[in-house]
């Protein structure tokens, strides 16, 4: 028998392995694809642009793994960790390892569920490969930072941290929201909104940041995931077009999800804004520049005119995101700086050259509103009073970020929002987080806000040291960078040649 072509093998793997159930109804076999209200008439209309087969997939991935792991070994043997620009850079990688990598693992599990749940063989197959990709990404990211875990503080216990630490609930609540939704909302949230709409804003800055800051390990893991991410982007667009083309009634449901998941994703990416402008000692591009390129030009001007054909408009909330681009990173990092006694990474006042870079990048906002904060913090530190704010923060019920966002367009004024449901009051950071709550209040009244859980005595004790111990933190993990063990070690390791520390 002649060897089957790739296309024939894909047909055999998908369509030919599909069958019509006879002992149960199709509704009983696939019970999760109707309750969200999405109507699918023809599952065979799903076009998988890649038509991968298991053997071809395994071959590509194993070749990439061989190259990647050879690189990791070389870096570990050659003390590659000494090549980074400065250990301040590692705060970005700790945040990534705590807030993103464990979520790769969680979505791997969920794509596995989707690969079982959907009625059509094409999308089941595509989701199976994406599930394996996500597992691989969780593994390669973990291995890429394991070298740093040997020499620097704050890299330990990231999975435990994600479940417990207060600021990581921003990531936990975002992904838990998606994982607890129906399969179509999950695909809109993760495959489309996160992996297509927002992905370039997350991955490109992280990989360029690693590259510019001498982190060959994370850079290699990123590039090794790049072909997978391109595939995920294509599938994300495919999934949204498939749903929209199946039935006009799907359009308003999808629009509601796009509004919600744009805003949730954008709030989550505040992490990237801080990283680009503050956590990278060698800057790549500002958050504002990345936002304009990847979101305004590529998505709003490139993608949404195409989606207009289906009756889809840009998400609500986009205008506020645009208004925030000139100050988002500054407002957020200022909060992290003053709460870093309770974070699993260190922070410090940006150096003079960095402050000047920010003045140049943010001419309308930085000198007016944010430079004075750093100057005051520097005076306090010179007096032996490194600024850490007292108290616990009021968190937004939806995004769980401290509710300290400026009034759109006015960095000098913080605004908050509130609403009532079932006789209880709820607080929000923005009108868009409030709208998300109002759409599905029964979901979000269950949110475990870390501050409220601490005050209920559910987080190890009543004092901050007890809570930090419950998180699994050690005293070296947090606080001021310049007086940290990391900074001390770094200076020793870079002592003049001939001097052994």
């Amino acid at each position, binding site marked *: 028998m002649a060897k089957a072509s790739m296309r024939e093998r894909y047909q055999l793997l998908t369509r030919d392995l599909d069958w019509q159930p006879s002992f149960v109804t199709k*509704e009983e076999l696939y*019970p*999760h694809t*109707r*309750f969200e*209200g999405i109507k699918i008439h023809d599952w065979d209309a799903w076009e998988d642009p890649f038509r991968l087969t298991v053997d071809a997939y395994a071959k590509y991935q194993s070749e990439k793994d061989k190259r990647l792991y050879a690189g990791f070994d070389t870096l570990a043997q050659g003390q590659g960790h000494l090549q980074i620009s400065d250990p301040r850079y590692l705060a970005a990688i700790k945040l990534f390892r705590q807030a993103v990598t464990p979520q790769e693992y969680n979505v791997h599990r969920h794509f596995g569920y989707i690969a079982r749940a959907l009625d059509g063989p094409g999308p089941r197959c595509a989701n199976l490969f994406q599930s394996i990709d996500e597992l691989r990404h969780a593994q390669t990211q973990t291995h890429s930072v394991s070298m740093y875990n040997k020499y620097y503080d704050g890299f330990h216990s990231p999975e435990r941290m994600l479940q417990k630490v207060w600021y990581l609930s921003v990531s936990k609540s975002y992904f838990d929201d998606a994982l607890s939704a*129906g399969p179509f909302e999950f695909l809109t949230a993760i495959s489309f909104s996160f992996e297509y709409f927002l992905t370039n804003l997350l991955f490109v800055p992280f990989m360029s940041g690693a590259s510019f800051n001498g982190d060959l390990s994370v850079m290699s893991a990123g590039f090794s995931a790049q072909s997978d991410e391109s595939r995920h982007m294509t599938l994300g667009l495919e999934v949204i077009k498939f749903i929209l083309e199946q039935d006009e009634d799907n359009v*308003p*449901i999808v629009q*509601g999800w796009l509004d919600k998941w744009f805003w949730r994703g954008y709030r989550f990416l505040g992490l990237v804004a801080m990283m680009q402008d503050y956590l990278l000692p060698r800057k790549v591009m500002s958050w504002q520049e990345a936002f304009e390129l990847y979101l305004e030009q590529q998505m709003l001007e490139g993608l949404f005119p195409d989606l207009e054909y289906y009756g889809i408009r840009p998400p609500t909330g986009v205008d506020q995101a645009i208004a925030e681009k000139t100050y988002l990173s500054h*407002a957020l990092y*200022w*909060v992290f700086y*003053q*709460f870093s006694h309770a974070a699993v990474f260190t922070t410090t006042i940006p150096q003079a050259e960095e402050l000047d870079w920010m003045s140049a990048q943010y001419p309308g906002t930085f000198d007016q*509103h944010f430079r004075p*904060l750093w100057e*005051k913090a520097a005076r*306090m530190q010179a007096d032996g*009073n490194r*600024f*850490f*704010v*007292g*108290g*616990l*923060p*009021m*968190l937004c019920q939806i995004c769980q970020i*401290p*509710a*300290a966002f*400026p009034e759109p367009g006015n*960095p*000098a*004024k*913080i605004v*908050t929002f*509130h609403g009532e449901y*079932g006789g*209880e*009051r*709820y*607080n929000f950071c923005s009108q868009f987080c409030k709208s998300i709550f*109002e*759409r*599905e*209040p*029964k*979901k979000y*009244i*269950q*949110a*475990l*806000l870390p*501050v*409220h*859980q601490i*005050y*209920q005595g559910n987080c190890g004790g009543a004092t901050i040291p007890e809570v930090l111990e419950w998180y699994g933190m050690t005293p070296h993990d947090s606080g001021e960078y310049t007086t940290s063990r990391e900074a001390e070690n770094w200076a020793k390791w870079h002592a003049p040649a001939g001097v052994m520390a």
Partner: protein
Amino acid sequence: MGEVACTGGSYGMTEMRTLGAYDFPAADRQELFGEDQLVNVHWDDQIFVPVPACFRVPKSMKWSDFKTQMIDTWAGTDPDYRADAATDWRLDDDPIEPQPDQTIADLGIVHKGLVRFRLG
């Protein structure tokens, strides 16, 4: 897995589409705090301390104690805070004139409510 049921009659309002009955209590409802409650405080007109603080206090706590033990301790981490200059007290946007002996409950501050002030 329960019976597949669609509970959403008016999607986009306040009903969720779920696989079954979906009714859970709020994770931080008043009853979980007994005789205490949560109170948030925001310091307006400045961004050095931009985040409103959240406190757990007895409903019967006197305003004078709340002010000195909670607000002054927290805001005092900013060296420019002046305890005697805190003024223009509001519940959200509504002005209040708290008296030292009034309690949190007397002042009508609800669980998770927001007290605002500025420096005069």
